[in-house]
């Protein structure tokens, strides 16, 4: 999985409740030492919210900065920087009331202008953020023109009506606009600190944030330490005094360090979940993630292979993949077989019963053979294709298994492994036949997946073009309840099969038994240090 996509955001439609903080159970006796240490598989690349691209960066930034909303344990919206909002009748103007007691860690009040500054900064060509497109996705007025340098950042559709009132103008009545507001890209930043320190503003001692913690130490590649921020508006409810984020690039070493007590939570290394969940159920858990793993089928008119232009061939290639074996025997971490692009875990999304999902694998393989022979491919005249994947043991094991599944239906698959930078270039240039890919949602709504394969999408590396699909997705932007459109879009995908969905991710992790408040069920893995506490055992 390419982690640098997965930035978490907000979930579901529920009304934002009261601000979230550590809610200590009356029966719990707090431990004397309140610290927490978290595992990062890669070093932090930046803590500048508008430049963040990776999950690791977001995990730390979420403790240092607070946006309009945070998420609770199941991913529902919780008021944070905002305490209320109104929306115009055309649903294109949002007005947020900001929390008057919110302060920056240097004592300055957090004002609407801080949000305006941050949002303009995200799209400002001078910032050159690779997440600038997120503002376009949010449908904020003039975002596209500002990114292209056609209008000044000041013309972005966001404005401070007064210190505590933020107004946002959209170009479509996007139904899930608010859900997109917990993303790291739209966190407020402190203008004076950035202007005074330039690139160095994110260093410990310099960084001014408005979150529950401040950055006290950062040694890239080794660790970052955050310490409780006494000026945080809800500091009284914070329990954990300090948190450390240790970079350990290897999942097995990380697990050993968890066992040695150096880490309080780690991801479970591949293949170990079945045993650990049996032996140590109090520590091991597994929950769905908003991510899907799939193979792309290149249908580009000029550059794609002829065979893949035939829908029956594409279907056959998808049917022949035995997802149960992949999940149960190869991956072994509780992943979910995928027959649709969107995971069932997405808020409000009902997985349509696409026909091939309900068949037995035997029936699917038979159907695959039939479809292939109809298309003129037989064991004597086998279909020959090449699969590209980026170097990783996991991708390789899956590719080898798929090669075997294909052999059984008379397709010769050649495996072609390459480093990520080359792989991504080839995908975007559409000069491949089959390619491994994956996507993790940016916000908890099916469109974060389904928008990928509209004909105009920057992610549509398969050259998929279906006018009905495009229309369903375009309409969903203005509908009160877009869910039926999402279901229909998935049905179209299953009929056209531009990609082969393989599995939906789960996150399986070990967590020390004295830690409370960790949201194991959040599909983005979003968690806040201020909500945790440790009990005396």
């Amino acid at each position, binding site marked *: 999985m*390419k982690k*640098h*996509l997965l930035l978490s955001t907000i979930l579901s439609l529920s009304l934002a409740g009261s601000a979230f903080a550590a809610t200590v159970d009356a029966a719990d006796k707090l431990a004397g030492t309140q610290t927490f240490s978290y595992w990062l598989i890669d*070093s932090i*690349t*930046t*803590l*500048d919210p508008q*430049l963040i*691209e990776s999950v690791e960066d977001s995990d730390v930034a979420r403790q240092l900065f607070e946006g309009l909303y945070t998420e609770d344990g199941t991913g529902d919206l919780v008021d944070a920087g905002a305490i209320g909002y109104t929306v115009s009748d055309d649903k294109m103007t949002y007005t947020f009331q900001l929390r008057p007691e919110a302060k920056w860690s240097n004592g300055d009040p957090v004002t609407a202008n801080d949000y305006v500054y941050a949002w303009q900064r995200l799209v400002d*060509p*001078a*910032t*050159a*953020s*690779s997440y*600038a*497109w997120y503002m376009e996705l949010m449908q904020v007025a003039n975002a596209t023109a500002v*990114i*292209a*340098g056609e209008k000044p950042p000041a013309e972005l559709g966001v404005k401070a009506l007064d210190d505590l009132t933020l107004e946002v103008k959209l170009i479509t009545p996007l139904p899930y606009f608010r859900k997109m507001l917990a993303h790291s890209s739209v966190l407020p930043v402190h203008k004076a600190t950035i202007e005074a320190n330039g*690139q*160095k*503003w*994110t*260093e410990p001692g310099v960084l001014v944030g408005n979150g529950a913690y401040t950055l006290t130490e950062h*040694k*890239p*590649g*080794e*660790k970052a330490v955050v310490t409780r921020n006494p000026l945080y508006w809800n500091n009284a409810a914070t329990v954990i005094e300090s948190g450390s984020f*240790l*970079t*350990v*690039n*290897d999942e*097995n*070493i990380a697990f*050993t*360090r968890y*066992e*040695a007590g*150096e880490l309080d939570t780690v991801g479970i290394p591949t293949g170990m979940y079945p045993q650990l969940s049996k032996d140590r159920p109090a520590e091991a858990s597994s929950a769905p993630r908003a991510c899907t793993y799939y193979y792309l089928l290149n249908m580009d008119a000029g550059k794609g292979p002829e065979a893949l232009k035939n829908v029956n061939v594409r279907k056959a290639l998808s049917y022949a993949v035995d997802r149960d074996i992949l999940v149960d025997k190869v991956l072994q971490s509780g992943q979910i077989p995928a027959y649709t692009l969107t995971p069932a875990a997405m808020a409000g999304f009902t997985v349509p019963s696409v026909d091939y999902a309900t068949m037995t694998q035997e029936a699917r393989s038979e159907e695959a053979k039939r479809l292939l022979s109809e298309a003129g491919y037989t064991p004597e005249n086998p279909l020959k294709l090449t699969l590209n994947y980026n170097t990783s043991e996991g991708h390789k094991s899956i590719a080898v298994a798929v090669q075997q599944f294909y052999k059984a239906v008379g397709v010769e698959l050649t495996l072609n492994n390459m*480093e*990520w*930078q*080359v792989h*991504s*270039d*080839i995908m*975007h240039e559409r000069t491949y036949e089959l390619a491994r*890919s*994956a*996507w993790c949602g940016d916000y908890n709504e099916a469109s974060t997946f389904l928008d990928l394969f509209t004909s105009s999408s*920057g*992610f549509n*590396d398969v050259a998929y073009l279906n006018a009905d699909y495009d229309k369903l997705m375009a309409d969903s932007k203005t509908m009160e309840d877009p869910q039926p459109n999402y279901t229909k879009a998935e049905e179209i995908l299953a009929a056209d099969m531009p990609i082969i969905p393989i599995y939906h991710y789960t996150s399986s992790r070990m967590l020390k038994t004295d830690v409370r408040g960790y949201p194991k069920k959040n599909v983005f893995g979003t968690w806040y240090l201020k909500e945790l506490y440790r009990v005396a055992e």
Partner: protein
Amino acid sequence: MFSFIARRLLVAVPTLLILIVISAVLMHAAPGGPFNSERKLSAEVVANLQAKYGLDQPLYVQIWTYIRDLVLHFDFGPSFKYKDRTVNDIIAQGFPVTLVYGFWSFVIATILGIGAGVIAAIRQNTPTDYLVLSVAIIGAVLPGYVIAPILVLVFTLKLGWLPGGGWEDGEWRYLVLPVIALSTGYIASIARLMRSSMLETLNSNFVRTARAKGLPEWKVITRHVMKPALLPILSYLGPVFVGMITGSVVIDMYFSTGGIGKSFVDSALNRDYSVMLGVTLLVGALTIVFNLIVDVLYAFIDPKIRY
């Protein structure tokens, strides 16, 4: 001697310039770029990114700007991947780390390697020799990525003596495992090299003469054998020292030291051109300096060599 050193240092300047040009050309020739992501970025965003980092300029302009900033301001440029850090920051943070664990690994590898090699040579074809040889072969074939996890498993998890990773500004407890993991392979190769070099010297005529004079064996070894036997080791140790102090990706990965070894490999994979170039230059400059030091040392050890 002085003019020799001055000459060598002068030659270093064009060498480094050529290194910059070749590295830059090769890097840009490699497919993929620093801003590749799962989502194909829009043309505007790519243009903004390229303009910010000067990648919209022709390559010769980029190289010229790079050399100019380097010479005038000692500025290695911004990192494309670590967006709030410069290459100077990355080297300033990572190099001291690898310098410390690399230096200690070097000291230990040299002392133990030479010691073991000498003992094995003196006791040639005895059980001691076979023991040293077998240990050396095992050490040489066990890669760091096998040794490192085993060390963590034993010393961190089973015995609980040492932390399984981290650096803490080089506190000794954090230093032990990386040093063992890094030096093991080198101890083995130095020992084997020292052993064969010793054996060769032990069989030479001047040693036979020394023995014939009736010198006690320990005097033969220390006065007549050690110095010439060390010469091949010395030329091996120069590049080894540079290799060790500029870090190891395995050590940095397994022990989370934050050293420069991993930054170097990551920069290549991420197409983080400026970091790659910065570390290449660092390694290049250090290699030139330490090869020079080795050559100077040669003159001291071997009276036949004069500059």
